[in-house]
């Protein structure tokens, strides 16, 4: 059983891996320690046995030629790289086009929203103006003496238009903004 604190140093000493100072310390220790000497001897034998046993097998003489044949059967590396680059570019263009289409579609939808809201409000306003005299009958008696009933109806309709337009514009901006 070798001294644990010297085992690794003894192995490094056998491999000639120790700096001068440490080498001398190990050599001094080996002179006085039978166990470490036995350990070093066993390591030396093992090393010799491994040198003898572990031999590199030879690569076949036609290795490079066979490899060349396989390479020639493949598309040239540069062609493969260009193909990959072209594929990547086409993919990017496709995705950009798709995003553009989505933006246009949703912008168109927003315009339709505004038009539909406008038509609805215009219809409501027209109905209100046409029926203003009849609507005024429902007003309390003390409010019927206002200067111009049509002006009042127009002011109310105008306010509704303003509010509806604001809401439509806000909705449109929110929708389109989320897709841009």
């Amino acid at each position, binding site marked *: 059983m070798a001294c644990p604190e010297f085992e690794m140093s003894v192995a490094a000493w056998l491999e000639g891996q120790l700096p001068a100072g440490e080498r001398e310390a190990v050599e001094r220790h080996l002179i006085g320690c039978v166990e470490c000497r036995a350990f070093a001897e*066993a390591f030396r034998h093992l090393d010799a046995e*491994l040198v003898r046993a*572990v031999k590199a097998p030879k690569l076949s003489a036609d290795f*490079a030629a066979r*490899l060349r044949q*396989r390479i020639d059967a493949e598309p*040239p*590396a540069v062609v493969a790289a260009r193909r990959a680059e072209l594929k990547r570019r086409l993919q990017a263009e496709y995705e950009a086009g798709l995003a553009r289409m989505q933006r246009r579609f949703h912008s168109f939808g927003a315009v339709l929203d505004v038009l539909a809201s406008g038509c609805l409000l215009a219809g409501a306003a027209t109905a209100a103006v046409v029926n203003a005299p009849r609507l005024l009958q429902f007003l309390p008696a003390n409010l019927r003496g206002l200067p111009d009933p049509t002006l009042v109806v127009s002011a109310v309709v105008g306010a509704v238009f303003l509010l509806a337009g604001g809401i439509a514009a806000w909705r449109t901006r929110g929708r389109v903004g989320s897709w841009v």
Partner: protein
Amino acid sequence: MEDDIRERLAAQQYREAFELLVERFKDKVFRLAFSMLRDPAAAEDMAQDIFLKVWKALPGYHGAASVSTWLYTIARNTCLTELKRRAARLTVSLQAPELEGAVDAIPAMQTSDPESGAGMDTHAMLDRLPDKYRRVVTLFYLEQKSYEEVSAMLGLPLGTVKTFLFRAKKELLRIASRRPMTAALA
């Protein structure tokens, strides 16, 4: 050592760069594959596959790592994939019911029992080491005892290579002390 390869790659002369790469590294890649697969024929086939992968990947090499580091990484990963594939195949085949019992009847399986006392050579001892130790030991002796080469080829820090090698040798001595050994170790 790699400057000429890098120059050709920068000039997009892939064929020329590849020829230099094969000429310079084919033996090392083969030995690396051999240290991992432990079978010369399989290692040679693997080396072919590795270089084919390298050929396909060559235009994508941007020089972040050295050419040899890049090549050894591809080599190691290809070998590890093959080892995983083999392990999966072995697991499946040993689970077949008709093989139950048959494995125990194989004499080689019986003599590999640690207590059997059957004769054992250095290769059999190496086979009993954990993979990570066996690869380091094998490659160390295949590469003329160069710690630096083993470190580069296996992608391990130099200190780890030294530690693994020391532990592997201690384990080999422990195995040797428990059974009759070849003449060199007796």
